[in-house]
């Protein structure tokens, strides 16, 4: 799933490691979410949304698979 996590993180001037620490996950997980290789669980998506003060829908771009 594509997302705006990288842009939002960079706007705040955080490194992947810094965001990972705030979320309580590994840097690998943040990187995988940013590159669209891993879709986070709902609780993690909510933690991201809360951290960026956004709605989940404005962070993640859901694309129906054809």
């Amino acid at each position: 799933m594509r997302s705006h996590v990288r842009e939002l993180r960079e706007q705040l001037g955080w490194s992947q490691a810094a965001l990972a620490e705030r979320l309580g996950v590994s840097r690998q997980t943040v990187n995988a979410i940013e590159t669209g290789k891993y879709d986070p669980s709902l609780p993690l998506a909510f933690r991201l949304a809360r951290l960026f003060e956004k709605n989940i829908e404005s962070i993640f771009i859901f694309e129906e698979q054809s």
Partner: protein
Amino acid sequence: MNLAFRTQLVIGLLLLVVALALPRFVSVSDTMEGILYGLAIGTLFSAVIRRQRGASCDEVPRALGRRYMRELIPATIAYLVTLFLSVWLLKQVEIEWLRALLALLPVAPVGMIMRAIIRYIRDTDELQQKIELEAVSIATALVSLLYLSGGFLQTAKVIDIPAGVAMIWVFPLICAVYGLAKMVVSGRYK
């Protein structure tokens, strides 16, 4: 050199020294010698792969990694000590129930190793847990397939592997395939 690589290298070399030196001092069965060489080669192989790959398959908080090593290393040492003790004592004892007890002596530290692995997996984050689950599934499926094939070949009298050797190698084989599978699976998320 990272900590995990150094630890694996030291354990692998230690096992190799034990495998080379032990038969010179005490009489060691072929099975036991094979197990020692297998463990040494497996550990060194895993260390080399880790070194070659540069980045680790596991990205976990440093405290979790340290706790895992703190639990794993003493358990591995305890396993080696009880293994040799068990083999040596079994040559001196004839009473059946005591032989059973001595033969099962190394199982307790293996239980400690398994506990360390489970605690480690339980405390990793959701992506790492997904990687671990997939790697464990692949490892158990492949090793089961191998043993099923071996069972058919043995029944057909094409091969003749001693049952003890076959049973002892289940856990090390699962660990080895699990390590390789984890490298492949984690590569998908990099």
